[in-house]
């Protein structure tokens, strides 16, 4: 019987303490974690640990060589999901979900709602630089350019030419963790 009672006391925590914890979680998810992920990605370290107040956050690569996940745009809509995960008291865990989701790649997303047309000469394996035009989304007759978010190699097309796409939709993956041997060798 002692267990339930100790649990009850935990539930009836001081509101101020609760508020402080919530604020700490928000700070973690909004400020700290994105910065840490970027840092981990940039350094090539295998693990990072940060302590703040009573919290400890550890980020670890899911094994193997450098794996990164970046988007062409910071999608605000993804933040609530992250927060929902972290609110279940496993902030570090939630982040590792994100990194596992896709390896060594970034995604070019749609700049508008409309009909997608890839660049005619766009082929998988072609080398692109950040800002290169990959295609366009026709929004009421006006072509909105789809551009490569990073330097890399064109991967998979996630939609077909002529498909209707929405704003922010994933269109083409850009691989950037590819071995240097494909450098300059064109489509493979």
């Amino acid at each position, binding site marked *: 019987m002692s267990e339930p009672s100790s649990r009850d006391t935990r539930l009836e925590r001081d509101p101020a303490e609760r508020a402080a914890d919530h604020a700490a979680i928000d700070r973690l998810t909004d400020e700290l974690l994105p910065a840490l992920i970027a840092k981990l990605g940039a350094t090539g370290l295998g693990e990072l640990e940060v302590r703040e107040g009573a919290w400890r956050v550890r980020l670890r690569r899911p094994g193997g060589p450098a794996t990164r996940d970046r988007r062409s745009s910071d*999608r*605000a*809509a993804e933040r*609530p*999901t992250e*927060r*929902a995960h972290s609110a279940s008291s496993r902030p570090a865990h939630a982040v590792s979900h994100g990194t596992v989701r896709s390896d060594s790649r970034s995604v070019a997303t749609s700049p*508008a*709602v*409309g*009909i997608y047309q890839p660049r005619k000469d766009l082929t998988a394996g072609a080398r692109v630089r950040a800002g290169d035009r990959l295609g366009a989304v026709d*929004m*009421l007759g*006006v072509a909105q350019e789809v551009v490569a978010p990073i330097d890399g190699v064109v991967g998979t097309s996630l939609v077909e030419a002529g498909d*209707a*796409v*929405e*704003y*922010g*939709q994933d269109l083409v993956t850009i691989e950037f963790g590819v071995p240097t041997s494909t450098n300059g060798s064109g489509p493979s």
Partner: protein
Amino acid sequence: MFRKVLIANRGEIALRILRACRALGVDSVVAYSEADRESLPVGLADEAICIGPAEAQRSYLSAPAVISAALVTGCDAIHPGYGFLSEDEGFAEVVAAHGLTFIGPPANVLERFASKAGTRQLLGAHGLPTIPGSEGMLRDDQHALAEAERIGYPVLVKPSAGGGGKGMRMVRTPRELESVLKVCRSEAKAAFGDDSLYLEKWLDENRHVEVQVAVDRYGHGVHLGERDCSVQRRHQKIIEESPTPALSPAARAELAEKAVRAVVAAGYENVGTLEFLVDAQGDFYFIEINCRIQVEHPVTEAVTGLDLVTMQMRIAAGEPLGITQADIDFDGHAIEFRINAEDASNDFRPGAGTVERYHAPGGPGVRMDSHLFTGYDVPPYYDSLLGKLIVWGPDRATAIARGRVALEELVVDGITTNVDIHQALLASETFLEGRMTTNLLDRVGSAAFLAAAARV
């Protein structure tokens, strides 16, 4: 009727339109911005499409994005809701040019009523008394000062486009006028994409009474009674009720009949609202027409039993009204409380954040139209309306009693709302006696209402 409707709005009105589409058996697509991905209308939609980023200029206010979304999802009509593109005649025209139907007045009708000054002239010619105002739009500050001098202070600076109190200021001196013109222009530009302003004579003790009309394509029109929207702060309505406690039944009937006769004669089409100021003597002056569904339409639905959104869709689809004035019964009294994310004790500062717990009140004569749910993140990009509580009773006293109970029962934890000020108003004699005037809340200050309620 339409096959599939694009809902080009957000929040509670997107939900309201979604429900209307379902009631009519019409498919719908909810168009949303990235900030609304986790919203209730998107979650409940049969189909949803992201049209742009959080910034309204690039999503809900982007005509190309909205129309493109309608085309790629195979819609044949667009419902604009209120605000955003709902009264933009240019948008309505482009919608029609793409073979889609704009759910609202046709573009040529919107154009006829687009200028507020022009509309006053037009409806004035069809028998509505109008309030003195500037001749056309204000060309520059010099023109504004000259016109204000001619009309006589105090005057109200109003934007030609839009509504909702944005870009609107009451001024009592030339100096005040000079200082607000720039702010009004930039507010109007930001909210409606149009910075033209005009002036209107300000009546110090006035009530805001508006008449709801519905007119079909064949020139058949009815009125659905009036709503009293005198409880305002900074020209934003916060409580609306019907019937108005300010006018006798005979005066109300006269006002409503004059209004519907004038708009039918002027060639209006679809649902619309004619706004009037009523002075201390009970004289009324037409001020403007709203060519859209309004936030406060449920008040009218409660006393007439009609569904205004499906009516709006039917008219836009070319169906005849199918009812005459004699078919419309007015029953009881309804009051709407706008639940806003704002802090009444802190100068109505707007708020955003996570709704930690939400519970909607219920019971006889209680309706809650809201897009809230427990865990919802209220985004900071849009207006502060969280929902509308509508109460109905066979008489005003019963409606007020039900309103008290419902406001007490409503739970919105995690966000500061204006529920306190509603409760304070329901405890104030001025409201209970039906004597609220449009500037009372601003003049007396909400703090005074809150303090008075706390003493009771």
